């Protein structure tokens, strides 16, 4: 039996009254297509850190992309620095894949101890296929209790006659064979990868893959996928790399960095690439320094970014307030992980919503955005740079470990025309007022080097000229101005992704959007009409737009990955919800799956 997962190509409800915006890689474009039900296969490879499961998974994803599929791969690791347990999880399909789905169809286990560490993350069913070497001994209860079909993988026999043959390559060959990937797309990926490793390594891996294919020929054929024609240009990218691309597209040319899991890849990707574009990345001594360096770079006139995770965001809070008060634009990407404190660094959670929205002291309006898919990391990062620069405000971009460290096949994102454009003061600057009280609330900013524009940016409350002031009138005027610029700005349709229509709405954000999309389409296939609202702009709150989006909605299901239901409380505080509200929340690291959401929807009606 094939596990089916519905396509996430939802029919979007376009907001007719919204101002038209430059194009972005939008769902709206896809929404013209009707909802299709496609097949997907979910695969887990488990082993010790050195077993090569990540390499095999990565190669399978690459080969599937070449073979006419879409898909994603997430990595799950134990806390060990090296070694420890590792799980590569893939979901492949002929159509778009936006979340890990509900369970595992095929599991290849290279050892039972490692596999058991992922018992909570690997959900098997009787239709699943579990492949393991009989030499591993008796299977643990998570396998035997699931009723999954078992296939022996006599690795020693399969690798006989292959000098230096590696079990992970056999596993790769078997998986490719089981899903019906042409052998040449796998070998093409292998060739590219081992280009420099020499003929012997290539021969060993080729033989291993072929042995796997041969073994798969005798196995059940019910996981074969049918390839489909794919978009002309597709990318293989992780969410963290996508943040980097979006930042560069937005115009970021200065980055200050302090490493932290799971945000480091953003910084490591930006370092060499920024360098080639004439920009700079500097490694700071801590996050207090990195955010202040970013403020300094921005004061100097460059669009600026730093990336971190919860503990780092906590350290940055005081200077985020400085960025608000001094009106120095800045983007902080927060790749959320399990919290509080050091929490669970390698795993995902949506529990930094409160600190991002409410964490600043004083009345400090600022921008908070959220990415909701790997592809959207490009758009939302770029849009956030644009907003920060246009509004001379800090923008906190919330993404998370799941999106950040997932590698996905996506359609090449269109280049949205949001490029940083800061309103600068130039020309005759006699009597220049840096914090002039303007109608829009945005005041032209003089960049050092501009004669006549000399001013002192200040975290102290100030007069329009920028001089420190403790007068009630100056405080009120500047508070109003800083609030007004965020309130009056037209964020267009990008404040949320809205898909479908119905009396039930799923309201969610961030990485819960993927499973919510899938659940919505599944519900629709079952005759249940559901609207999906995924908020991209979390601050400032879009009260009127939200009200409009909820028109006709009688029931709301809030979906979030937080123990204290931060998103639900945020919605309650800022928006009017119908009486009938249910909350589906759970802390990380276990993901919310489409089936969880679907069950809640189905059992409501």
């Amino acid at each position: 039996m094939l596990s089916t997962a519905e396509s996430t190509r939802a029919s979007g409800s376009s907001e007719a009254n919204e101002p038209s915006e430059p194009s972005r890689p939008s769902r709206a474009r896809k929404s013209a297509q009707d909802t299709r039900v496609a097949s997907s296969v979910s695969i887990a490879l488990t082993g010790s850190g050195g077993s090569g499961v990540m390499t095999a998974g990565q190669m399978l994803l690459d080969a599937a992309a070449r073979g006419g599929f879409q898909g994603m791969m997430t990595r799950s690791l134990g806390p060990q620095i090296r070694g420890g347990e590792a799980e590569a999880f893939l979901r492949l399909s002929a159509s778009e894949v936006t979340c890990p789905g509900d369970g595992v169809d095929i599991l290849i286990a290279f050892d039972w101890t490692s596999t058991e560490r992922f018992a909570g993350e690997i959900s098997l069913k009787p239709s699943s296929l579990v492949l393991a070497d009989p030499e591993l001994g008796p299977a643990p209860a998570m396998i035997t209790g699931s009723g999954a079909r078992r296939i022996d993988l006599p690795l020693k026999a399969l690798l006989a006659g292959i000098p230096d043959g590696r079990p992970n390559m056999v596993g790769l060959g078997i998986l490719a064979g089981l899903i019906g990937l042409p052998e040449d797309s796998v070998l093409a990926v292998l060739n590219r990868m081992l280009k420099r490793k020499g003929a012997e390594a290539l021969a060993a891996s080729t033989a291993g893959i072929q042995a796997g294919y041969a073994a798969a020929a005798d196995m059940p054929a019910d996981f074969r996928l049918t390839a489909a024609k794919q978009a002309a240009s597709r990318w293989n990218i992780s969410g963290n790399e996508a943040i980097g691309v979006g930042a560069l597209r937005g115009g970021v040319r200065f980055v200050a960095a302090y490493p932290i899991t799971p945000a480091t890849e953003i910084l490591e990707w930006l370092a060499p690439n920024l360098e080639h574009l004439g920009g700079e990345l500097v490694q700071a001594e801590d996050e207090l320094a990195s955010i202040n360096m970013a403020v300094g770079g921005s004061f100097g006139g460059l669009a600026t970014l730093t990336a971190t995770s919860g503990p780092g965001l906590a350290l940055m809070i005081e200077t985020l307030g400085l960025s608000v008060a001094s009106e120095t634009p800045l983007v902080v990407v927060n790749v959320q992980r399990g919290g509080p404190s050091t929490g669970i660094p390698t795993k995902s959670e949506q529990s930094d919503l409160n600190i991002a929205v409410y964490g600043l002291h004083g009345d400090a309006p600022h921008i908070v955005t959220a990415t909701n898919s790997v592809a959207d990391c490009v758009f939302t990062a770029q849009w956030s740079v644009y907003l920060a620069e246009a509004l001379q405000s800090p923008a906190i971009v919330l993404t998370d470990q799941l999106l950040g460290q997932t590698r996905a096949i996506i359609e090449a994102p269109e280049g949205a025309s949001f490029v940083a454009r800061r309103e600068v003061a130039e020309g005759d600057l006699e009597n220049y007022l840096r914090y002039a009280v303007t109608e829009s609330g945005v005041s032209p900013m003089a960049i050092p080097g501009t004669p006549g524009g000399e001013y002192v940016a200040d975290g102290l409350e100030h007069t329009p000229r920028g001089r420190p002031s403790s007068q009630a009138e100056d405080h009120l005027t500047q508070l109003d101005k800083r609030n007004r610029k965020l309130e009056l700005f037209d964020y267009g349709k990008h404040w949320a992704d809205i898909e479908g229509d119905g009396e039930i709405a799923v309201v969610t954000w961030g990485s819960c959007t993927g499973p919510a999309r899938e659940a919505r389409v599944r519900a629709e296939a079952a005759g249940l009409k559901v609207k999906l609202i995924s908020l991209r702009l979390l601050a400032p709150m879009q009260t009127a737009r939200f009200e409009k989006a909820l028109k006709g909605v009688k029931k709301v299901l809030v979906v979030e990955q937080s123990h204290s239901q931060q998103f639900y409380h945020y919605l309650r505080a800022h928006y009017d919800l119908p009486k009938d509200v249910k909350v589906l929340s759970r802390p990380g690291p276990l993901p919310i799956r489409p089936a969880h959401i679907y069950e809640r929807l189905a059992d409501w009606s």
Partner: protein
Amino acid sequence: MTAMEQAVGAGLQPKDYKSDYKPIWCPGCGDYSVLTSITKALSVLGVARENAAVVSGIGCSSRIPAYTSLYGFHGVHGRALALATGLKIARPDLTVLVTGGDGDGFSIGGNHFLHACRRNVDLTYIVMDNQVYGMTKGQASPTTASEWEGSKLTPHGTGVSPFQPLAVALAAGANFIARGYAGDPNGVARLIVEGVQHPGFSFIQVLSQCVTYRAEQREWRSRVRPSAKEPTANAARASRRILDDDGFTTGIFYLGSRPPYQPVTATDRTLADIEQRFVI
């Protein structure tokens, strides 16, 4: 003044670098004269106003940016060096001065001080050391003598040996290390000129009296003496001089030759080239 004159910075007098904004400082505070030294130094250097920036944290001494007619940033407590580092790396064309107090620089900002010294970005850092927290009304700072009992917060003295800014700067890798005295504004101005001209991170400790919470510092005048020795480029010799000193010798203690921090950058690719690597 025409924009042209401003642009070349030609012939600007020290007063041209001052703003018309009245300092909040107590009469007799050493920081007045440090402000004068800064404006004198800029006049000697002939820096155009728009091409210089003063960055500070929080404290009485950190108020300096607003009293100049330059670009400036009055940031948060302790982070001035980090902010200035970002500014200078983003804008190497600017002359960047960093100003502040001993609490701002050595206590809350101590880690940034270490890393600014070793990073060696071309900044000039002027610390107005009054061995007290002036702004918060007289608590002990890292440079306060351990037995000082003048603060309600530490009525028996801190019991902690004071921080040695010059020794720490040398150990951490600062490229220019000097001490001045606010009672000698011309001397301090000369140190600032040399500090700005010397490549890399220049650290100048200025003994700047707090007449309100450390009235006894008025006596500094009789204790301060200029160094009789030529500045050295030898770190071991500089270290001996610094450690043997009683903290009242002024002058340049160390002139290093480490090349300043130089970010690697080139404009040799387009974003489209970079994105090409993701294409399947």
